[in-house]
């Protein structure tokens, strides 16, 4: 049997904060990353685990003012079934449906995806493209970090040792459009070769785009924004010449690696192709 680290299961958030203030713990939510790491002996197992599954303060999907707010323990199944997510952020329903299969969707959480900080985390580009804010808490109080600042380097987050990720706020911007695409070896159970989220503001159809955000996963050590490509798209209409320029800019801008899941060349080519297609679909040509 795999090693079985010591685990504590607090029933309230304040109990959890107190434990984290005393000594570092590795939090476990749905377990779909941590149990794989322990069983597969990927790195040293944690000395102490904090089981946050029973913290109901971290559950729920709600609209709060001008934001859609998801508790960190919201599962992919809950995102897929949520009428609020379907209404205000359908790209997130779509993303949740591409992650794992039923078994993983019933256990994996949006907070776990963010805190695990894999460069292939499927929801992370969406958080970045939507200007999401991650709300962190500890005995010292709460603070917000933007998604663009939450993953500073490979497998690192902005979380301090005594902090928990509590919830994620997606600002609701009336005329913002968001698209999501994932490329893997098959539709289910695949770790991404490239995952992309594209957001912009503008009227439907061929009106020029504003506030363009293009975020990608699996192409760098962290999820990233493609700033040069965003600059090409900002102020442009989604026509064929824009798509051509944006796709070639993206291919030049990305610097992915070869690894077991894909090659750098393939990742560059497929990212450019996926972006081209998203622009074409938006432009209706």
């Amino acid at each position, binding site marked *: 049997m*795999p090693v079985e680290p010591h685990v504590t299961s607090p029933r309230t958030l304040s109990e959890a904060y107190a434990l984290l203030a005393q000594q570092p713990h590795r939090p476990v939510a749905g*377990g779909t990353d941590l*149990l794989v790491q322990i069983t597969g002996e990927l790195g040293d197992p944690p000395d102490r685990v904090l089981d946050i599954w029973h913290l109901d303060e971290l559950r729920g999907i709600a609209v709060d003012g001008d934001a859609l707010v998801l508790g960190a323990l919201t599962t992919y199944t809950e995102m897929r079934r949520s009428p609020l997510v379907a209404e205000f952020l359908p790209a997130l329903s779509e993303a949740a449906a591409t992650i794992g299969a*039923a078994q993983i969707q019933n256990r994996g959480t949006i907070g776990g995806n963010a805190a695990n900080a894999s460069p292939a985390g499927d929801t992370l580009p969406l958080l970045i493209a939507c200007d999401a804010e991650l709300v962190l808490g500890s005995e010292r109080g709460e603070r917000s970090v933007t998604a663009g600042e939450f993953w500073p380097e490979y497998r690192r987050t902005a979380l301090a040792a005594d902090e928990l990720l509590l919830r994620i706020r997606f600002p609701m911007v009336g005329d913002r459009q968001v698209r999501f695409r994932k490329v893997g070896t098959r539709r289910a159970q695949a770790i991404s070769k490239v995952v992309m989220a594209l957001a912009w503001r503008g009227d439907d159809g061929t009106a020029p785009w504003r506030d363009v955000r293009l975020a990608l996963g699996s192409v760098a050590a962290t999820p990233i924004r493609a700033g040069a490509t965003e600059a090409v798209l900002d102020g442009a209409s989604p026509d064929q010449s824009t798509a051509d320029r944006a796709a070639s800019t993206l291919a030049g801008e990305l610097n992915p690696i070869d690894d077991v899941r894909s090659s750098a060349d393939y990742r560059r080519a497929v990212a450019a192709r996926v972006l081209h297609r998203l622009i074409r679909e938006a432009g209706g040509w």
Partner: protein
Amino acid sequence: MSFRFFVNGDPVEVEVPGMRRLLDVLREDLALTGTKEGCGEGECGACSVLLDGAVVDACLVPICQVDGTSIRTVEGLGAENKLNDLQSAFLETGGAQCGICTPGMLMAAEAFLASGGPSDEDSIREAIAGNLCRCTGYRKIVEAIAQAAEQRRAADPHPA
């Protein structure tokens, strides 16, 4: 640590480390070896069981999170010496060959049938997308699930 939950309707209590996998508790501590270990990393679905009705990989669930829940395993599908309709359908269509994936397939299919949604081929294939089979090519498994869905609909055309 002590954890109490239900397995196939019966209350159980185990005294084990909290990070022990549900899979190991079922197989090693409770001697319920119907649930199989394939990959041990959430890829193959051989260890699929139902946790409060939702299909999960038992290799990815620490027992501390099972406290207070109801688990259903393949041992809970039929009665003693009597297969349930889904198991019979797998037998009739040839949906079971070597048998390693079968308990997990059955549990994923059982969750799908209980959800009461549409049972077209795409929906069935999505429901078992987390379960690998290296023998059947899936076609006979899909047929078995479709057959069981049809039988349940015929038996209870207006489920609550």
